[in-house]
């Protein structure tokens, strides 16, 4: 059974952390992952940096640019991760844009993920329909879960469709906005969280975008299975490097 599915069965709210691989320094990847696990993080999203990350806000975009300057490439990342399963057991998801995967070859990319022990992918610019028509079989062949997104604007029919083809969790974008844009949740979001919870989807939901501290984590996970933190963690890395990851995670979980 895929590590993601296993993790989702745990009777707790899940904390998922995103970071851009190769940032702050090219070879921080493994140590960040190990640190995050050690401090109680449940799922890790490893960002494969892209030159034109159009669904990301300025913080993640800047870390991506920096990572690329540091020399990060698809191959470098795979090499850094090749022994990761010797030390890390929580689910690992690679989050990246579609073009680098396409250039690598989608099948090769999936195979390499499988070999390493990556559990899933999040590809914001691979639309559900294209995935369903062309790539689902390949992902499944390599035991990879494709994490699909919904937003407050996603229609009920489309949510149901996305739920129907999802096999892990649904990435529930808290508000229609690029990462790192908002701080704190308002009434609108709370209603949206409730609306989705009431749909009783087959797949659990993990909330992303706009989670930066204990308060927003609690709000987001009041009805959802977990939450993902990206920009806030990148900012922490920018300020503190890889050292005080424990403090950051503790401040979220309290």
């Amino acid at each position, binding site marked *: 059974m895929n590590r993601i599915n296993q993790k989702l069965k745990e009777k707790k709210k899940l904390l998922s952390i995103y970071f851009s691989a190769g940032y702050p320094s090219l070879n921080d990847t493994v140590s960040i992952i190990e640190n995050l696990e050690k401090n109680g993080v449940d799922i890790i999203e490893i960002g494969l940096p*892209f030159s034109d*990350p159009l669904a990301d806000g300025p913080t993640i975009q800047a870390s991506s640019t920096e990572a690329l300057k540091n020399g990060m490439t698809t191959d470098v990342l795979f090499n850094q991760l090749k022994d990761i399963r010797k030390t890390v057991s929580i689910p690992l998801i690679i989050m990246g844009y579609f*073009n*680098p995967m396409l*250039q690598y070859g989608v099948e090769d990319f999936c195979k390499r993920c499988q070999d390493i022990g990556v559990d899933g992918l999040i590809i914001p610019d691979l639309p559900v329909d294209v995935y369903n028509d062309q790539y689902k079989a390949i992902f499944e062949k390599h035991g990879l879960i494709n994490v699909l997104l919904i937003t407050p604007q996603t229609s009920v029919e489309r949510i149901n469709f996305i739920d129907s083809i999802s096999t892990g969790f649904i990435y529930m974008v808290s508000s229609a906005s690029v990462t790192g844009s908002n701080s704190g949740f308002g009434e609108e979001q709370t209603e949206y969280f409730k609306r989705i919870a009431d749909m009783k989807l087959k797949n659990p939901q993990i909330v992303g975008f706009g989670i930066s501290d204990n308060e927003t984590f609690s709000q987001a996970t009041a009805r959802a299975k977990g939450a993902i933190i990206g920009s806030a963690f990148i900012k922490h890395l920018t300020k503190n490097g890889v050292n005080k990851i424990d403090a950051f995670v503790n401040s979220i979980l309290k």
Partner: protein
Amino acid sequence: MYNINDKGYYGEFGGAYIPEMLYPNVEELRQNYLKIMAEPSFKEEFDQLLKDYVGRPSPLYLAKRLSEKYNTKIYLKREDLNHTGAHKINNTIGQILMAQRLGKKRIIAETGAGQHGVATATVCALMGMECIVYMGEIDIARQAPNVARMKMLGAKVLPALSGSRTLKDATNEAIRDWINNPVNTHYIIGSVVGPHPYPDMVARFQAVVSEEIQWQLQEKEGKSTPDYVVACVGGGSNAAGAFYHYLENTDVKLIAVEAAGKGIHSGESAATSILGKEGIIHGSKTLLMQTDDGQITEPYSISAGLDYPGVGPMHAHLYKTGRAEFISITDDEAMTAGLELSQLEGIIPAIETAHSLAIFDHKKFKEDDVVVINLSGRGDKDLQNYIDYFKL
């Protein structure tokens, strides 16, 4: 054959590779654009504005001295005479009417040369709508007159500070804005790029160019088809417009002109068809300049409007199938051709357009060939560049 299919692809190119956050917007547009364009009230308003506001039809002008020099029959399609000075406004007029019918209140756009930004700011002023234009920091500097025009027109110009700080990055910023404002905002893309249905919609709005060429040539030459149609290609909208009604008529040879910058293999170029590989850029599967690793590379051209690492999916298809011939023109060749047109015909072309006028050293035409060049824009925005380049 060469036009879009019902899945939104030109052959293998096109589609809508967009984040889920954009899905409702793009889907709304996809479901409605053809319906709205077919409404008589839309057609009427569009045609009326093109005539009374934009100044269409743009003339088809027989350039006598240029024709003499190159010993062939050269017609210039005078998009430079449109209101705001380029073909771009054909599209923005169409899209602003579309946005109104979709109930949108806020308009965003990206711009490279600033022509699309000006054309967007213009229609927003005309309709009293809020307008935000994203423009690369480098382009803000090299196309200052257009920045000033946008401000006069009441638009907000926001600099794109990432990447090469040119058109590609402005497009990223616009898409980010759209993701953040999914309900009230329409994104007026300025070329035949982006997710389906943009390439097709923009091509249809620009198709007025070849529609006019047909009847204008009929009047002047007694036949509606030229031997060649020539247009420069940044994203590809002016070429799409000039080619549109001739796409399926292979008697008409199509020439797409790209920016070779300092030379195709100089590392400073924007010749996408030659340097590009298949991939995804700004929501569309097409040809783009990228590293082996799939990172989009920073293009270079002296002309802000051609300084884009991708090309519209229609053009990727025209290239792949050989339907259009692609010629690359360096900065130097373009500048020289721009000066030549100024002094032979009294028309100062945009540097983008000047690329199209530089093909005569690459391609020989017969004396009785009828060659239509799409004069996509005027050079007022580029005067400083010309002056500096030629030390006038």
